[in-house]
């Protein structure tokens, strides 16, 4: 399988374009993530970050420990 791929890729010219292309993909993806993260609403954030604490049973046992 590897040889098959190898054979095909050997012919590619300017293979160095790959990193530049991927870098572009990343930066676009990264800025899209930042843009949307910045636009997130406070209630959503609070809801998501509270997920680990939504645990009534554990809170009860915790009282016994402290």
């Amino acid at each position, binding site marked *: 399988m590897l040889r098959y791929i190898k054979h095909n890729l050997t012919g590619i010219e300017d*293979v160095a374009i790959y990193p530049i292309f*991927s870098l572009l993909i990343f930066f676009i993806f990264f800025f899209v993530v930042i843009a949307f993260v910045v636009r997130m609403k406070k209630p959503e954030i609070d809801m998501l*970050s509270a997920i*680990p604490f939504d645990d009534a049973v554990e809170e009860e046992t915790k009282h*016994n420990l402290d």
Partner: protein
Amino acid sequence: MEVQKFSYDNTIVRNFAYATVIWGIIGMLVGLTAALQLAFPEFFNEYLGFSFLSFGRIRPLHTNAVIFAFVGNGIFMGVYYSLQRLLKTRMWSDKLSNINFWGWQFIIVCAVLTLPFGITTSKEYAELEWWIDILIAVMWVVWGLNMFMTILNRRVKHMYVAIWFYIATFVTVAILHIFNSFELPVSFFKSYSWYAGVQDALVQWWYGHNAVAFFLTTPYLGLMYYFVPKAANRPVYSYRLSIIHFWALIFLYIWAGPHHLLYTSLPDWAQSLGVVFSVMLIAPSWGGMLNGLLTLRGAWDRVRDDVMLKFMVVALTCYGMATFEGPLLSLKMVNTLSHFTDWTVAHVHVGGLGWNGMLTFGMLYWLFPRLFRVKLYSKKMANQHFWIATLGIILYAVPMYIAGFVQGLMWQEFNADGTLANPEFLKTVTALEPYYILRSLGGLLFITGTVMMFYNLIKTAKSGNFLANEEAEAPNMRDANVKETGKHFWHRAIEKKPARFMIVSLIVVAIGGLVEIIPTMIVDSNVPTIASVKPYTPLELEGRDLYVKEGCYNCHSQMIRPLRFETARYGEYSKSGEFVYDHPFQWGSKRTGPDLAREGGKRNNSWHYDHMIRPKDISPGSIMPAYSWMAENDLDLSYLPAKIRAMQTLGVPYEEGYDKLATEDAIKQAREIATDIVNNFPEEVTKNLDINAKIEEMKSKEIIALIAYLQRLGVDIKGEAKEADTSNETEEN
């Protein structure tokens, strides 16, 4: 909405917790032994000179044990605890959980039973042989399947950030492990890497770097996002930051592997790419660290009283230090000094002891009282552990940093007349002795703390009452159509769909992976083949396998960088074309001993023979183990034909049918070397000796094959220089 009753499986968490502590102590003890061998080599040679205890064999055992046994079990412990609670459901299958547990322990036992006996592939942090690699892949999939099915059966709508890290860990480690483990088995205990030379090095360090990233970092970041808020009893500082942290980290990490190969024979553009991404990595790494530390905002007073928080703060601080240092070390200027020295050892131990160790300890102290529903047996002892461990880290890291600087600078030092100030390599090793002693002390302290913790946890467990199935209840909100206010955020659409999430993270990781892997596939056209470089003779091939078996690569590199202080010491710098028949590559990553890339022909056979058996007699002050058993053990040539055929399959141009002639050739070459050595024996030895019988006896010993290999190193290119007196690299396309 109807509230459903269910229970969490605590048994699996407890089992992994015990395994974490027990393997942790074992792995650290092996590390301490290795450290003591460097500090007190004479004692070990004199009293503990067993082959299975030699440095080259147990150093891989140490790294594998702490990475896959200590941290590995720690990952499973934390994931099995937090995943159930974050998803409000029991693990999908108790049976798979148990298979995961016992299967993983079995793999570790296999490692303990193979590595000390020289059964190794010699690829760092991936030394285990082919069939253990398959077992690892199976167990990893068992864990992944169980995790993924649990996620699908969850009772909550959203996947908390910790779970994204778990998913990325699963996906990426699977890819890394499979690609790096392509090997061709020759027998049950021996295989050859599918890749050769530069290709093998690139794949190996793509794996090696990302084993650090996706085994030691991402799962622990996931655990940090769960356990730090839980221990501090407040939500993570910025959930927004955690989203950016996650995506940036998994994207960038996968690119940075080539920074392990700066100034080597790797194509230049790949090196530069590695450096750029390594420097960029500092942003998400520090984003994550700050997010963890700032979670404690307003709760710093609790850090004083709460020992778990103390462990976590030190863990995060060490993470910050290690991830600042990582990019620094990837700069070519710094790397010139640091590479092959103890600086790297210091760096990984700040990460290993500080980040992984301290976070694991924090989790364990937090979990045991909850699993056993009782207060921690002794808070005071836990506090003592904290201070001992912290002191241990400092006492380990600081001497190793100094050792790294000292040795690196000594290598580089030139006299005014342009000659090396320290032409004798040994001088740069003996100078490190005090640091090696201090480092052992640091390790000893760290282990002492861990043993105290073990005692504390056992006492806690004994005084408590284990809760195997923790009752819980929750409504099933997974598919609930709850009206949400505000605009829907696209990222939440992926968070709600685990399969989609897995695919997106796979793509993100794959981009970087492909860019590094594609060039390795086409690397044939990037590696100028050197006409004078020929395949190893059968005896040299056997010698090379012994070099791998004894773990020589743990202390000796075979890679001369194109730097003046390196070429002045070792000779012509290494060319990528020299390694085309090296399955696997043996470039190494640390020089406790000198580079061997041009060792061939530098010294005679007798020197090597004596030096291997009694290094200290030949090089006073040497810290190399005495390999006396190699002069006693018979060389096993029974697999030689199969080895030659394997090499032919891998593309090494032995003539058709050579496998049948190989054994004869090997014996012939062995007799020549043995004759040379015996003829050089001093007269008082030979006068009462049956010389022919001695030659016949000696020629069948392992040491002869090893000498054949050592005498071959770098010779091909020297021959070429004589013939043409120019760099004769020709491209064969």
